Structures are given as C-alpha cells and as structure tokens.
C-alpha cells in the first residue's frame, strides 16, 4: 500500500522520511512523531474521500506542513502531495497526484484506512446492535461488531472464537447477550460454566479480544494503524499478538486467502521488539532531537548483526545504542 512518507514541518517531523513495508512497528520516545505518522496517514485517508484538487497546489502556506506519500504497485506511479493551504486553517490540506488515471482506485482503498487506540473501558462497553460492523477507534462497539460477525460472517466468527478460546483456555464460549432497547454486550463463559461479562474481564483479555476482532475481520481495511499495540498484554502472550498482526500483513503465511493489510503499530515494549530480530526491516525507530523528530529503519543499521550477537533487540533499544530513547536532562 504506502511505500514511503516524506514530512516537512508536520508537527515535530520537520524534515524526515520513512519507508514502510507490509508490517511496521514504530518505536521511540513520547513526542517523537509516532502518533504524527499515524495522523498523517489518517489525514490522507480523510482527504482522499473529499475528492481531488489535481495538479500543483497553488496556495500553500510558506513553511507550512507538507507531506508526500508514495505507494507500492499497482499505484507506484502515484504521488500524493498534501500541503497546508492557509495559515488560518492549517488542517485544510490539499491532495495533489501524478498518474491521475489510477487515482479513483487508490482513493477507494485509502478510504478504508483505519486507526485504533484501544481502550479497555471502551472495549467492555455495552454497544448498540444497530451500530454495524465496524469497531470504533477506541474499541467501542466491540460487542455489536461481534454480534454482526456472528450473524453475517459466521465462518470468520467461528475462526475468531476458535482462536480466542485457544489463547484464553480458561474459557469455553464467547457469549453475546441481547439487552433491552437494542443493546448488546459480550462475555466469556468459563470452563466451569460461570459467565464473566466484558466489564469484569481483565484488561489484557479485553485488548486481546479487540485485536482478535481486527485480525479476523472478514473485510479488513487496506491499512490498519494500532497505537500501543501491546498494551495490557502479558509478555508471554506477545508472540501470539505478533502472530495475529502477521495474519493481517502476511495472510499467505497463515494460510489465509485474502489481500494483505498493511499494518503500522507503535510499541514501548522491549519484549515485543525482541520478536522482530529476524525481521529488522519491520522496525522503524523515531528519534527525538529537541522539538524535532526523525525516522530511521533498523535494517539500515550496518552493524546490526554484530549488535545482536551480544544482546537482544529489546535490550539494545533500551540501552540507547539504537536511538529512539527519551532525552534525559
């Protein structure tokens, strides 16, 4: 999907570029541009829906934010340029594009992009049956999404629940309870028969259920952003989490017949980062320099092999030799 994004004066991202692959985990201190990267992707998605001002952007704010996005095949000939059009509304970016012929197709795909910052309280909340098939940005609507899947995509629902019960073996059933006035809530039935409503599930179980709903989406977006993807998850469960995310980005490796979903995640967990030792091309490091930030890719580090001989990737990151650590005063 997206092959690179170049930033100028977009928040802390003054002048930097990032290359993206099917799966990406971005690590770095707070305020180093991880969220700005995802925001830029979401802005691209939003603007793509508004239609297109083609050709050169005429009225842009000098020194204002500019973002250039390039794409993988079949959209390799397309460059989307977003820039600020006035100093009053810096939010109003314009989209320019080369190879206009492919734009409508790309536009449709960009429109599917989703971004999540899951929150356990939102995940546990009672949902409204009629609120459709899509998980809310914080994970709200989860119960309605599960009920919709059960009714409209039973095979995908069976896969989801099968994996869920494998990962949480203390349970034997996912239970959806209809409430008065169109409400629905979910719960998990324990092996010994007790029902644990969502509100009483552990945070980790709620986050895992949210990620499962995304990973087993029968009609997933083309690009999915998940911030703090390891939140609440036990370190020994992180491998299962990575498998769920790889299922999206590399469906063939999981025996799933579906187009790959590009994934951009952020993490602060050295244990999660350890899991990418064999795929350093998937790790993006964001560096903070005062109020500015830049991106680099772990794979571009020439001495990576030697570094990994003496320590784990997570330890190397924590030590500071890879960058992507907070500045200490």
């Amino acid at each position, binding site marked *: 999907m997206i092959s690179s994004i170049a930033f100028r004066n977009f928040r802390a991202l003054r002048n930097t570029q990032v290359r993206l692959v099917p799966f990406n985990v971005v690590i770095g201190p707070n305020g180093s541009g991880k969220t700005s990267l995802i925001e830029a992707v979401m802005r691209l998605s939003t603007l793509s829906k508004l239609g297109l001002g083609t050709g050169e952007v005429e009225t842009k704010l000098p020194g204002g934010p500019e973002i250039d996005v390039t794409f993988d095949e079949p959209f390799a000939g397309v460059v989307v340029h977003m820039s600020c059009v006035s100093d009053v509304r810096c939010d109003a970016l314009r989209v320019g594009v080369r190879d206009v012929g492919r734009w409508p197709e790309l536009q449709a795909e960009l429109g599917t992009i989703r971004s999540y910052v899951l929150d356990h309280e939102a995940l546990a909340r009672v949902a409204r049956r009629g609120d459709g098939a899509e998980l809310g940005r914080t994970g709200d609507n989860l119960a309605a999404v599960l009920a919709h899947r059960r009714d409209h995509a039973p095979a995908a629902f069976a896969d989801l629940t099968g994996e869920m019960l494998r990962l949480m073996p203390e349970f034997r059933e996912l239970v959806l309870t209809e409430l008065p006035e169109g409400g629905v809530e979910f719960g998990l039935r324990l092996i010994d028969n007790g029902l644990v409503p969502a509100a009483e599930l552990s945070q980790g179980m709620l986050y895992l259920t949210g990620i499962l709903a995304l990973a087993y989406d029968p009609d997933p977006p083309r690009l999915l952003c998940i911030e703090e993807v390891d939140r609440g998850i036990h370190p020994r469960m992180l491998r299962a989490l990575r*498998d769920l995310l790889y299922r999206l980005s590399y469906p063939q490796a999981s025996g799933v017949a579906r187009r790959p979903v590009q994934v951009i995640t952020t993490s602060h967990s050295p244990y999660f980062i350890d899991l990418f030792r064999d795929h350093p091309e998937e790790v993006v490091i964001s560096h903070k320099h005062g109020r500015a930030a830049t991106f680099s890719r772990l794979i571009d580090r020439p001495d990576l092999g030697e570094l990994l*001989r003496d320590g*784990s990737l997570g330890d190397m990151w924590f030590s500071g030799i890879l960058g992507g650590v907070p500045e200490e005063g």
Partner: protein
Amino acid sequence: MKVALLSESPADEAALRVLVAALLPDALQYVGPGYRARGWPNVGQVMPSVLRHLHFNTDAEALVVVVDSDDSVVHSPAHDAPGYFHPQCRMCQLRAIYRLTTRRLPPAQGRDRVVRAIGVAVPAIEAWYLCGRDATVSEAAWIEGQERGRLPYDRADLKRRVYGTDRPSLVLQTAVAVREAERHRRDPRRLENDFPGFAALAADLRRMPPRTDAR
C-alpha cells in the same frame, strides 16, 4: 525423574518434551511452568536464578536447557579437554554457568544438586527438524560453511524449508516441532550423528541417575 525445561519458545519446549521423554531412562514428571528465556544471551542470564530456584524451592532433579547457536562458535571435542572453556561457544558458556552456580549451593530438598542436560542447536532448532529430511543440513555443513566464510543457509532459509514461510505462527511452529520431534523420538540416531549439539544433550540425559527412592 522430575525435570524442568528452560527454552526459548513454547514451540521449542513442545519439541523438547518429546525428545526428553525419548531419552530419559526413567519415568518423567515436569516441574514448573516451562521456564522461558528471550533468546541469547538472556538464557545465560536467567539460568543461575532458575537453577537456584529449582534447587531451593522445588524437588526438581534435572534442568534441561536448549539454545540456538546462531552464528557463535560451535562446540567441538577439543572444548571438552579438562579445564578448557571456549568463551564464544554457547555449550561451554552454559556448562560454565551451571558449574559456577551450583558449586557452592548447600544440599537442599533431599539432594545435593539439580543435574543439568544442555543442548545447542546449530544454528537453530529448525536444523534438527530438517535432519533426515534435508541431507544438506547438518552441524558439519554449518561448520564447514563458517570455515569457508560462506554459510550454507541462514535462520530464515531454515524456517522457510521447515514451515514454508519465515513468519510461521506459533501454532504452526509448535505443530511442526512436535511432528519432527516425534519422528526423531522413534529413532534418534541420525539426529545424534548429524548434530553433536543434540548428542551432548542426549548423553547428559542418559547419564541421569535413575531414581533410587520413592520420593
């Protein structure tokens, strides 16, 4: 015999359970949750604590540890000379850690010490799974590649050959690990012959004293 396992992943652990059961002369009972380390050098870092914990707080009689060699120096018979220790060999390092950790422990739980069985998979446990299926994969082939400066395969190659992808899910990895370990369990001779890092583990396990009491 009461045995604890220290491994790098649940898939490795599943394979080890099968192999250990095949090699131990005594009925087997596992102790603990399946101790886990996050690859090298973390295995060596947690091993002293695992040993002390097993020694004082459990009735474990043996600790089984298996690590990947990656591109470290491969253990050779020359390393077994009395008093010799190769600082870049993971087998030598783990044995030394065991020696140093257990040397001064007082007897506890009715036994002198927790004995050890250490294996090193060269360069990764997937090579063991290919043993007997892919004639180009062996410890000797790897060592020759190291000497020539051109490795015959890497971790990703081995993964692709074993799992059909270098991004296997843990479920797939575990299923394949158990299947291949079962194959070796029926006849471990080829694995012992082609992988001295496994033969060392097997020798340690066969050397374990049979239980004499009814504890």
